[in-house]
């Protein structure tokens, strides 16, 4: 029976007389199809004689021809050296000790080179100071192969020969001599004896020369405070391994506070030994890495931190000051009580950008006689002087500067008053900038001298008094570039290479008869006699020494007074109304020098787990008040509101918002290093430039926040923030329980039901075990107490294993490829313990203790939560769920414990990824190399030079995952076989374990009774992740112990 139903698409169709119906009948496509657009030139089209059939013939023929041609294998060429360098054996890596000193990061490192190409950064374990490479240093090797690097010098943006540049500069400098105009050198912090000497000689030669050291992120307050007290412009050094009690007022010392590098010492004291570990209390505004690791974290706005610091000083001193800090008062009292118990073992640090605060901290540490505090051998990792920078800009605008030579700085990007600088530089007769990339500053200078990467340069540093290190090139200059010091020597008419110059400096002032070759081989040199004053390198040393003694005489009296006044002014600190904005460097990006580095862009921030962005962090209370939200959208991505920030009339619009648990109410945080535009690939132009708000070089600013329309799309790799009371994922306990109770209580082994009996999960097994007691059996230990979450391992893994960069869009779709992730969890209640209790006590579905509402609540982190980090890579389960479901046996188990992955066998069903309880398997959704859609380092010949030739570059459609760096263990084994010896403990390393400067990740052979990892495997704190699943992993964790002893 025919239906009378009438189907209609719009109401208009129901009316037969409507014109739309007629129109639709005549014309199916209402909008005209732009045929001409996609067919191209019409005339050309009509002139051609190719008809459709011919076209199909051509297509058919060419397809057949192409497939026939493809039947022939390619002819591969093999081109040996004409004269092979003695040290290079193809296929064997060479290591060179060198130093990174880019003004922000200072570290002694080893560079692994293959066939002459630097491919990996390793820690220089010989270095007692600065031997730890952080994530940025680990990634710096990729910046060497940046395809956007300057390939030769430029004059006003046009390529020019070095000879022409040198001649131009030299002539101008010569003419300035005695002209009354200054020559200004605006440089990064070098902390380099040779460069200091060179600059002195340059000054002597040209007379009126100003050398201005400039740190993009200034430590001027700390430097000034130290200078006032000890007469030297330097930074106090701290050894946190010697401290039992660490009190920090806004000092993010596990990240980049005063040059960083403190995590190794800190972690040493955090591992409970003989029932003791250090206690760490953090007063801070932003949730920092350091705060996340603290035993007790007190959120305080910077203004209140100042008051609290003043109060601490007063309480220790037995005096009293005014000011209100609310609930923090209690915490402060506890701190004071604890300090007083053992003054020498306590240390106080602060990151407040205020000379008074820094002075008070120095005074407190002296007063306590802190063992961790070292003012005798200070650090030189920051030298920037904001006053001189401001003077320089003023002089430039006044037309007093004849020549401006810059190196290692990008003031047009990093200066808050970049416009003044731009105005000033126009009045300078000669401006030269040494830069590796085209950037904001090169745009406004006359000459751009293409600079070397540090891996192509010679250099030296003295990061800490008496601790020297050498920088040596590990590759010939890739392009027509020169380093600043070499050019300076050339301009001075000195016929000497910078290498010879350094040797001269070291021979005369540093080595004191020691062997240069050994120093160069080690990369470091420590002055054996601590009394020797290495600062003798400077000419006017004697005069300074006299000043010192004069100052010291008057110091005791006047400093007491000045400290008292400093405390008073701290106690009276006011915020100036509005919200307080705290600017900080992010672990991944630092000051923004390496913004063009895709590894760092894709590196998820340890705290927020957001990559490819910076953002403003707002407390939950403030967010609610202003109406700011974070929400998850249908495709699983995280979206956030936009705000407009205004500081003192300067505003930035469309700053995305992250609601940050633990952010002190009344404060917001924003990171430096983003928002670079000039000379950057479009993919890398991420975030907003926070330097515009960095007024007077103060990291704390009073800010007004307005909501802006629209939502920002974040690329966040961890959307679930809390543990939901699943205490067996990160097992935690307190020091007290750890010391007093049996491990069965605080390291509880989950039970399962077997024959209706509760038995420990470790005793039940579906499978027969394979005897692994013979040969090597690799295990990895991760100590959750030592892990600070710094992420150096993530980048090291990236570099070692050719892990591709997928870009912001793909990360947002949860297609990130990191083999090693560091999960960050917040507690929903005040502590994780309370989360566990809450979950245990659920009773029924609804009601007061109902699980329906209860689990919903557990999803929300607390206002000031506990934080825990957990690095997770493939757990290399001995009974791996992934292996049993692979239909093609592409993943299988080795007898040495590794879960192996044969990429060439994988057909991409992704069953394994779905069956993996740890979610560590990564799928190659696309071809990430040689693909214009992923225009990162694997898409150009230069960037590909960083790839590790021992590890496969995976193709599209296969699963990949952590291999426990099997290429490294295989190499170690082969070396031993070739030399006919057994393997010592410590020889087996993975990329992450060797990058871990805190010792949290330990790798080795558990069948070797004497190995460290075997001992760790027997520790009471050892547990496996998701033990109840029965996967028997070869990676194990150590229970996190928090020192909650209040007194």
């Amino acid at each position: 029976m025919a239906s009378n139903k009438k189907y209609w698409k719009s109401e208009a169709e129901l009316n037969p007389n409507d014109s739309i119906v007629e129109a639709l009948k005549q014309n199916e496509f209402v909008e005209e199809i732009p045929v001409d657009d996609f067919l191209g030139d019409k005339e050309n089209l009509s002139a051609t004689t190719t008809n459709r059939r011919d076209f199909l013939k051509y297509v058919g023929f060419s397809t057949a021809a192409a497939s026939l041609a493809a039947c022939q294998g390619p002819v591969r060429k093999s081109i040996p050296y004409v004269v092979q360098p003695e040290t290079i054996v193809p296929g064997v890596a060479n290591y060179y000790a060198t130093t990174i000193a880019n003004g922000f990061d200072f570290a002694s490192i080893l560079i692994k080179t293959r066939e002459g190409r630097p491919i990996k950064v390793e820690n220089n374990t010989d270095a007692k100071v600065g031997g730890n490479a952080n994530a940025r240093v680990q990634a710096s090797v990729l910046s060497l192969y940046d395809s956007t690097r300057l390939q030769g010098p430029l004059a006003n943006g046009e390529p020019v020969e070095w000879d022409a540049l040198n001649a131009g500069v030299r002539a101008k400098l010569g003419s300035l001599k005695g002209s009354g105009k200054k020559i200004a050198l605006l440089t990064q912090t070098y902390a380099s004896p040779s460069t200091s000497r060179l600059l002195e000689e340059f000054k002597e030669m040209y007379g009126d020369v100003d050398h201005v050291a400039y740190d993009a992120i200034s430590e001027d307050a700390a430097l000034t405070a130290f200078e006032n007290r000890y007469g030297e412009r330097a930074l106090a050094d701290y050894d946190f391994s010697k401290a039992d009690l660490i009190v920090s007022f806004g000092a993010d010392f596990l990240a980049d506070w005063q040059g960083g590098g403190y995590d190794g010492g800190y972690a040493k004291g955090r591992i409970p030994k003989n029932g003791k570990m250090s206690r760490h209390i953090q007063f801070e505004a932003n949730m920092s890495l350091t705060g996340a690791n603290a035993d007790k974290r007190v959120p305080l706005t910077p203004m209140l931190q100042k008051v609290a610091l003043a109060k601490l000083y007063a309480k220790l001193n037995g005096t009293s000051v005014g000011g209100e800090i609310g609930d923090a008062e209690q915490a402060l009292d506890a701190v004071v009580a604890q300090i007083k118990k053992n003054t020498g073992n306590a240390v106080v640090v602060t990151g407040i950008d205020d000379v008074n605060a820094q002075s008070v901290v120095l005074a407190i540490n002296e007063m306590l006689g802190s063992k961790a505090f070292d003012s005798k051998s200070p650090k030189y990792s920051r030298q920037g002087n904001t006053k001189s920078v401001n003077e320089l800009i003023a002089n430039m605008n006044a037309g007093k500067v004849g020549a401006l030579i810059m190196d290692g700085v990008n003031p047009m990007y990093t200066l808050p008053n970049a416009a003044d600088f731009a105005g000033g530089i126009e009045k300078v007769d000669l401006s030269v900038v040494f830069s590796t990339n085209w950037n904001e500053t090169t745009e406004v200078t006359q000459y751009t001298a293409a600079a070397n990467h540090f891996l192509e340069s010679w250099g030296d540093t003295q990061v800490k008094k008496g601790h020297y290190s050498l920088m040596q090139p590990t590759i010939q200059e890739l392009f027509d570039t020169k380093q600043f010091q070499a050019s300076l020597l050339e301009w001075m008419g000195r016929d000497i290479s910078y290498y010879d110059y350094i040797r001269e400096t070291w021979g005369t002032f540093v080595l004191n008869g020691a062997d240069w070759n050994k120093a160069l081989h080690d990369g470091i040199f420590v002055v054996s006699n601590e009394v020797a004053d290495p600062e003798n390198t400077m000419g006017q040393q004697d005069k300074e020494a006299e000043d010192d003694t004069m100052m010291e005489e008057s110091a005791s009296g006047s400093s007491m007074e000045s400290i008292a006044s400093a405390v008073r002014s701290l106690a009276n600190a006011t915020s100036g109304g509005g919200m307080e904005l705290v600017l900080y460097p992010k672990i991944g990006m630092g000051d923004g020098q390496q913004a063009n580095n895709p590894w760092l862009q894709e590196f998820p921030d340890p705290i927020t787990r957001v990559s490819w962005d910076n953002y403003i962090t707002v407390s939950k209370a403030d967010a609610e008040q202003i109406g700011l939200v974070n929400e998850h959208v249908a495709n699983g991505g995280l979206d956030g509101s936009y705000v407009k920030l205004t500081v003192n009339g300067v505003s930035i619009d469309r700053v995305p918002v992250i609601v940050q648990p633990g952010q002190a109410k009344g404060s917001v945080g924003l990171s430096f290093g983003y928002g670079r535009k000039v000379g950057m690939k479009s993919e890398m132009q991420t975030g907003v430039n926070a330097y515009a708000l960095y007024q007077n070089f103060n990291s704390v600013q009073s800010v007004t926040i307005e909501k802006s329309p629209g939502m920002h799309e974040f690329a966040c790799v961890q959307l679930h923030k809390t543990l939901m009371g699943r205490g067996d994922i990160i097992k935690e306990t307190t020091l007290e329980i750890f010391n007093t109770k049996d491990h069965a209580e605080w390291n509880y082994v989950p039970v399962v039901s077997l024959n209706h009996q509760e038995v420990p999960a470790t005793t039940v097994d579906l499978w027969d075990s394979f005897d692994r007691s013979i040969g090597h059996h690799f295990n990895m230990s991760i100590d959750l107490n030592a892990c600070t979450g710094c992420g150096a391992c993530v980048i090291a893994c990236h570099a070692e294993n050719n892990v591709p960069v997928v870009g912001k869009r793909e990360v947002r779709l949860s297609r990130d490829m990191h083999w090693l992730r560091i999960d960050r969890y917040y507690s929903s209640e005040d502590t994780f313990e309370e989360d566990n209790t809450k979950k245990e006590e659920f009773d029924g579905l609804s009601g007061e203790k109902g699980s329906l509402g209860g689990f919903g609540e557990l999803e929300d982190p607390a206002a000031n939560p506990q934080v825990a980090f957990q690095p997770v890579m493939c757990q290399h389960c001995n009974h791996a769920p992934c292996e049993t479901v692979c239909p093609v046996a592409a993943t299988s188990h080795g007898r040495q414990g590794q879960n192996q992955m044969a990429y060439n066998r994988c057909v991409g069903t992704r069953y394994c990824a779905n069956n993996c309880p740890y979610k560590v398997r990564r799928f190659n959704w696309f071809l990430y190399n040689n693909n214009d859609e992923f225009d990162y380092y694997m898409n150009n010949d230069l960037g590909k030079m960083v790839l590790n030739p021992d590890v496969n570059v995976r193709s599209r459609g296969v699963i990949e995952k952590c291999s426990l760096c099997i290429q490294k263990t295989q190499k170690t084994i082969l070396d031993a076989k070739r030399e006919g010896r057994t393997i010592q403990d410590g020889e087996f390393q993975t990329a992450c374990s060797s990058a871990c400067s805190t010792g949290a990740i330990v790798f080795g052979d558990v069948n070797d009774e004497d190995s460290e990892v075997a001992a760790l495997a027997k520790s009471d704190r050892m547990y496996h992740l998701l033990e109840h699943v029965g996967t028997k992993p070869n990676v194990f964790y150590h229970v996190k112990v928090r020192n909650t002893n209040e007194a």
Partner: protein
Amino acid sequence: MKKVPYRNRISKVLGVSLIIFLLFSLSLYSQEETVAENAEVVAEDGAANASAGDPAKGKSLFNQNCAACHALNRKMTGPALANVESRLAEEEGLDKEWLYAWIKNSPGMIKSGDAYSVKIYNEYNQAAMTAFPTLSNQDIDDILAYTAAPPPEAAPVAAAAATDTAGSTGSSGISNEILLGALAVIFGLLVLMLFLVNSTLRRIAEANGVVLEKEKAEKRTPIWKAFAQNQFLVLVTVIFLLLGSAYFAYGWMMQVGVDQGYAPIQPIHYSHKIHAGDNKIECKYCHSSARVSKHSGIPSLNVCMNCHKSIYEYKGNPEGPSKEDLADGYTNEFYTGEIKKLYKAVGWDEENQRYTGESQPVEWVRIHNLPDFAYFNHSQHVSVAGIECQTCHGPVEEMEIMYQYSPLTMGWCIECHRETNVKVEGNEYYAKIHAELSKKYGVDQLTAAQMGGLECGKCHY
């Protein structure tokens, strides 16, 4: 992929051309006689000239002591030595005594400030000549006699020898041919006889009125129709056909990407036969990184120049190039030309015995192409396991043109790992694991497979 045509095709051509060679053999024999006569004449001349020395003895002494740095007619590390005695006497006025002194202690002469000694020392880049105090005056006389009258070139003799052998092999070829030809004729006759018998019988049958059963046969259904009607038979046949074709298709596909026998034409014709076979140079002398690295490494050109600085021409085997070589064009001149290619690439100026600095790396065509996803380490096999290079690379010392001997497939790798015992003697690394594992498996000798050599992750990561 470029391949050298199969060698046996060449030998076939050679075989056919042997007959033609035979035609010329007479004239060649006569040539040989004349050459031999010439040689005698020259030798006699030389003996007459240097009455004091024996050039034959001198030749062997020269080759032992001098040839590394001197040649007769060209500069090498040291000056050319042809007629050195008379040259010195005429040009510099130096007698034999000077030569005795110089050869026995040249550094002493330079030190003492002898004018010509110093001059020649400086002229040749201050490369000091080794002192030969062990040579007696008689020895030096012999050498000088040789330099004054070198024996004739051996090339024509060699050529004659070559034809000689060609002639002899040619004769055996002919006897074979005759045999075969005779057989073919006999077979032809047999076939013809059969035909004749058949037709005779047929004619007899017709004459006798016997009806052949042809008609009857035609009434039956033709066999193809019967076959088509029998569905079972069709089905079986189809299955067999499909299986058969699948078998061959599989076999064909399995060889895709297997380049066994791949012998590309290289930019320089480098003969492993001459280097590793005739001259018995150890493989790892040139492929030194095979001992320590995953790559065996193609030697850099400076390694070639270690020897080829003094070996500037190819002199061939004592017997001269074989007929096969000649047919391929592998004459001495050809090889010498290849050495010149090396000089050009490395930038070696033969005239002045120095590097020009204008080098051009040689783009060898890679023969053994393991895919990127397979990790292979030479040092594991060469240094640790002590496997001969020939095990995988075949009789390299016999390869005029290098080719891929093994299939380099995974099956081939695994086969070997299953069969080969791990070499544990004297290697402390293996001591413990071998003792424990061999006990576990109850064997004396562990194979690589039992050691874990079949695990995917050992080669794929």
